[in-house]
């Protein structure tokens, strides 16, 4: 019942947003839908974890711990994003933008399309987290691609168009491969009638055809891995994240990449139940490490601060894949990493939008002494840097620590060394940019108008950062048990 409401609320609201004429009404719709969705999410989590927890109605859409975790992250992120977006849209309307780097005027996409797609995007992501049928999961993931493409092309510039095209094509083709994977999975269970529903597949995992199951995993991994931004399938990610409006980048990085990760976790859970944990773990570890190394290499010499954040997302996707690949206790770490990365990175992308508004450029070298012009933004920017690089106390630190501990316990010393080395390079690389942007000497910008900071746009990022710090200091009991249950769903141990 609540599950159905969770799916229908953003769907109906999204459709409505296309029809509404008044901007004010549409913005109110956006915020109130986000609030209602968050409330329903809290309710469904409470019912699931609370006393006398019901196993939920069986069907194509139902929540287990893993789904709930990602639903919670998505809903919380969207709540913050909707408040940010409303103020952002008001400002854009008043002062339609100037291309940040090119210096020419551009138009924005109609606001109805933007808001409508944003809400439908939420509906699709909710469907991903709720899907118990892998075919449905696939359809929902593809829907997220199609619905977020118009969001990236909100600023009608050549650069955002190029990013949108790459995103659409690379992700659609990638996800087409995941469809192949689904077919292989169906074929693996053909003789036993396992179907494509998670319950059936998990129950009959032991008698699935193993070579076909391996093929299924490979295709699904490449497909969803493309969407998740794992190297070497990540090429669309920095473009899309840097050209989209900040609020969309935050949702892409914080919520959408998680949805793709969920797709991979679903299959690897089935493979683990079928006794193929070694095979899937090896692949996840390999590509996780590759993503980390790629991110570290590209971090050196970045010129654009939104691209820099995008590469940091690739890094964290690598960490998550690595954790899932190591298995055992590291799966818990991977899920904690997903949670903390989402909140931190969303906060950072929100802040990057404010930096852009204050400085009118995305180039790192042209932003200097931000704290003089926008002190509160600068404080958030610096705080976000410390949190994302895993300085304690941050949930990110805890997650990295758990994964490293598991790697050492499993005697993967070379892996642990490469992991630490990449993290060190990333920290050093990012520190240079963040510090020169925040402090540095402001030069020759005497004629510029003073910049007024928007409290409504600072607040979501600040709130997210506080959550991440709290998660690093103390995991509340319910969150701990949710994470632990989710780790079990994903084939990990405790």
């Amino acid at each position: 019942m609540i599950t159905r409401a969770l799916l229908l609320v953003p769907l109906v609201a999204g459709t409505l947003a296309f029809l509404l004429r008044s901007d004010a009404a549409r913005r109110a719709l956006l915020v109130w839908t986000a609030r209602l969705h968050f409330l329903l999410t809290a309710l469904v989590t409470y019912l699931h974890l609370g006393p006398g927890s019901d196993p939920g109605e069986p069907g194509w859409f139902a929540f287990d711990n893993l789904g709930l975790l990602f639903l919670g992250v998505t809903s919380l992120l969207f709540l913050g994003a909707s408040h940010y977006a409303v103020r952002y849209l008001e400002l854009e309307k008043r002062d339609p933008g100037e291309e940040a780097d090119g210096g020419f005027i551009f138009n924005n996409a109609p606001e109805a399309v933007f808001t409508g797609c944003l809400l439908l995007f939420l509906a699709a992501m909710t469907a991903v987290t709720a899907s118990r049928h892998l075919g449905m999961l696939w359809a929902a993931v593809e829907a997220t691609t199609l619905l977020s493409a118009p969001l990236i092309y909100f600023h009608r510039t050549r650069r955002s168009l190029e990013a949108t095209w790459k995103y659409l094509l690379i992700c659609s083709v990638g996800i087409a491969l995941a469809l192949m994977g689904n077919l292989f999975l169906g074929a693996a269970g053909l003789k036993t009638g396992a179907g494509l529903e998670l319950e059936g597949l998990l129950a009959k995992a032991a008698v699935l055809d193993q070579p076909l199951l391996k093929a299924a995993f490979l295709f699904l991994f490449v497909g969803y891995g493309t969407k998740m931004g794992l190297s070497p399938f990540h090429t669309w990610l920095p473009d899309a994240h840097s050209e989209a409006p900040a609020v969309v980048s935050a949702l892409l990085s914080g919520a959408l990449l998680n949805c793709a990760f969920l797709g991979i976790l679903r299959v690897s859970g089935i493979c683990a139940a079928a006794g193929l944990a070694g095979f899937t773990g090896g692949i996840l570890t390999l590509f996780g490490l590759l993503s980390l190394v790629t991110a570290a290499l590209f971090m050196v010499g970045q010129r654009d601060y939104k691209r820099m954040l995008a590469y940091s997302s690739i890094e964290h996707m690598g960490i998550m894949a690595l954790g899932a690949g190591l298995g055992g206790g590291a799966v818990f770490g991977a899920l904690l990493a997903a949670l903390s990365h989402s909140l931190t990175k969303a906060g950072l992308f929100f802040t990057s939008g404010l930096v852009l508004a204050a400085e009118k450029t995305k180039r790192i070298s042209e932003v200097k002494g931000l704290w003089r012009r926008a002190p509160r933004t600068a404080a958030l920017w610096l705080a976000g840097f410390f949190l994302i690089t895993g300085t304690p106390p941050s949930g990110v630190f805890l997650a990295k620590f758990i994964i490293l501990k598991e790697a050492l316990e499993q005697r993967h010393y070379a892996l642990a060394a490469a992991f630490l080395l990449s993290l060190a390079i990333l920290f050093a690389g990012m520190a240079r940019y963040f510090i020169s942007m925040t402090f540095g000497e402001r030069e020759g910008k005497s004629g510029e108008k003073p910049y007024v900071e928007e409290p409504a746009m600072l607040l979501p990022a600040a709130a997210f950062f506080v959550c991440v710090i709290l998660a690093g200091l103390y995991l509340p009991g319910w969150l701990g048990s949710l994470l632990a249950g989710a780790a079990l769903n994903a084939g990990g141990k405790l």
Partner: protein
Amino acid sequence: MNTFAELIIVFIILIDLALAVTGSLSSCIKLVALQGVVAGILPLLAMHGSPHFRAVAFAAVIIALKGAVFPWLMMRARDRSGARKDVEPLISYPASILLCLGAFIASSWLGSRLPLPETGVAWIVPASLATIFTGFLLITTRTKAITQVLGYLVIENGIYIFGLALFVEQPMMVELAILLDVFVAVFVMGIAIFHISREFDHIDTAELSELSDWRRGEDGR
């Protein structure tokens, strides 16, 4: 019954080869549409006994989409964008067809190695794999945005045939959701092509190269 299905398989492979060498954009669109239509007919022929109403209705939807709606959208995108009439490949046509033939041989080998259930229709697995490969060939070696969408559609055709070969029955809802996704994908890509042609005065994706990590800054931006 199956002889006819096997004829269709041969036909699908021939269309793959034709796509590799066709230079005219509108012929390409028509070939992809034709492939979609014959792929849509295939499940009705491969079936034993008289087909269900559900299967017929579903086949009709697929044929209508792939045979009429998609080519119409593509033709419209082509006309609106004022694209030149040829596909402008990055590699020569003989190279394309050699790659396509090579892919077919590799697919036949792979098809015989895969531990798949017996299908009853000869060559259906190699044909589907070769079709998927042809789609990738179109995406990677042609410069126009439209041909990339056509490549995506060819991959989709290939996966559809592959699904038939494996007898994986998905529930109607899932099939419809997948079809809806493909439809929206083509629709959104069509809109994107329109915008690309308006912004850049052409739909050559080789020109979409402003975003990269290394070239930036060197060209004085």
